[in-house]
């Protein structure tokens, strides 16, 4: 993309004015920022690299002719502007609507300048018809200079480094669960289980494969499962052991990950995405 822009600029310079050094520095208040090829696609950027819009082009023409911005020879500048648009057309560059609007405004301005002034006109009509355009150009130029200032600030700022992020529970909850934490939860359940279950009725034996499947489904449907809840479903000591082993197994297979947001907090099983 950059090479394309360069070639186009060269073509244009060759055909219009032998003032390449001005062309090279027009972008922002007399300095040449790097033009960064990025994902942004302001239509004009592809077309004419340097000229972001009609005001840019106009400023360029004014500088090239080295005319006073407060006393723009509207006729000449308008002609050059229109010639530029034609050249863009010949080069098969899509011309954005903004450029055409400006062309129309310039031509209107030109015609108003050509008309003799009405001697009996009211005071307000004696104001130079170019004033509005000049104000816009100056305003635009100010912000181009401000953009240049921001650019150099950002460049300096990029050379300054702060220390790297610290690893804390906040930014990495997954590190916090150790095997002992898991065992502790398991102990809790086991202890509670002892108290609760007083009578055992004939029970179904759940196989390891079934238990893994159960956990898998829970994690899949809820997205996140509190291990405490999972273990509580177990009907017997044996089932609990199987449940515990199935957690280990799924972690080993990297199907789920365990995380704990705070020390001694809930341990959550999550599907590994």
């Amino acid at each position, binding site marked *: 993309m950059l090479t394309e822009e360069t070639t186009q600029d060269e073509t244009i310079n060759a055909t219009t004015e032998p003032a390449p050094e001005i062309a090279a520095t027009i972008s922002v208040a007399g300095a040449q920022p790097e033009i960064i090829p990025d994902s942004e696609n302001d239509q004009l950027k592809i077309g004419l690299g340097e000229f972001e819009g*009609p005001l840019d082009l106009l400023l360029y023409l004014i500088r090239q002719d080295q005319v*006073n911005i407060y006393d723009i020879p509207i006729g000449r500048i308008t002609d050059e502007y229109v010639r530029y648009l034609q050249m863009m057309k010949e080069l098969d560059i899509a011309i954005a609507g903004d450029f055409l609007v400006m062309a129309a405004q310039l031509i209107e301005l030109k015609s108003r300048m050509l008309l003799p002034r009405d001697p009996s006109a009211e005071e307000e009509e004696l104001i130079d018809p170019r004033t509005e355009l000049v104000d816009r150009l*100056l305003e635009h130029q100010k912000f181009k200079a401000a953009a240049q200032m921001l650019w150099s600030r950002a460049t300096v700022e990029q050379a300054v480094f702060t220390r790297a992020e610290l690893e804390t529970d906040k930014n990495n909850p997954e590190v916090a669960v150790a095997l002992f934490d898991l065992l502790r939860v398991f102990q809790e359940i086991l202890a509670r289980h002892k108290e609760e279950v007083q009578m055992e009725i004939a029970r179904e034996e759940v196989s390891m494969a079934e238990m893994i499947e159960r956990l898998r489904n829970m994690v899949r449907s809820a997205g996140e499962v509190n291990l405490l809840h999972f273990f509580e479903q177990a009907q017997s000591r044996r089932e609990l052991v199987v449940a515990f082993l199935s957690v280990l197994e799924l972690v080993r297979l990297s199907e789920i990950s365990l995380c704990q947001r705070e020390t001694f907090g809930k341990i959550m099983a999550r599907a590994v995405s």
Partner: protein
Amino acid sequence: MSEAGRAKRKTGENLAEPEDLIAAEVDNGSEIEGHHELSAAELHGAVEALIFVAEEPISAKSIAEVLKVEVAAVDDVIGDLAREFDKRSAGLQLREIAGGWQIATRAEFHEHVRAYLKSKPSAKLSLASLETLAVIAYKQPVTVPEILDIRGVQSPSAIKTLLEKRLIVARGRKETVGRPMMYGTSKEFLIQFGLKDLTELPSIEDFQDLAGGGS
């Protein structure tokens, strides 16, 4: 248990100690009606430590809250620290940015830091984005049509980029036809452009001479 294991455990014990100490200190503090006096040297060190460890620039107020001291006292200490850093003039600087304080490397060592971090200066913003950002920074809160007026060209993608990079934020809607969204700069903007606050931006009128003079 292996040598390494034992060493690790020992470190663990060592780690626990300062925590206990701090806990004890806090307890003492609360006993004397929550008024625990840090010695001048302690305050000095604590402030520096907090600035070092803070992820974002930390304000004197936040530091004062953590250390339970007056903001003015923290301001004094920061002033001293800043002078120390300046006097030392080594690899680090203490600087005020986005309403807080930050310890950062000095810009002149960027080559070496980059070599170590294996990072290249990243292409930051396109010209279109920078110009749009400049308009927003100086005219905020500002609407899209107002930006168009100054830039003379539409800038939807630039605004999108700036929002994605969190350099600008929506600031509600303007009570006018169509109720357009207004935009302003964010704290991230101050950080990325190394500004204490918005008043540190050079006045837009200062660019007048620059703009008019050339032609």
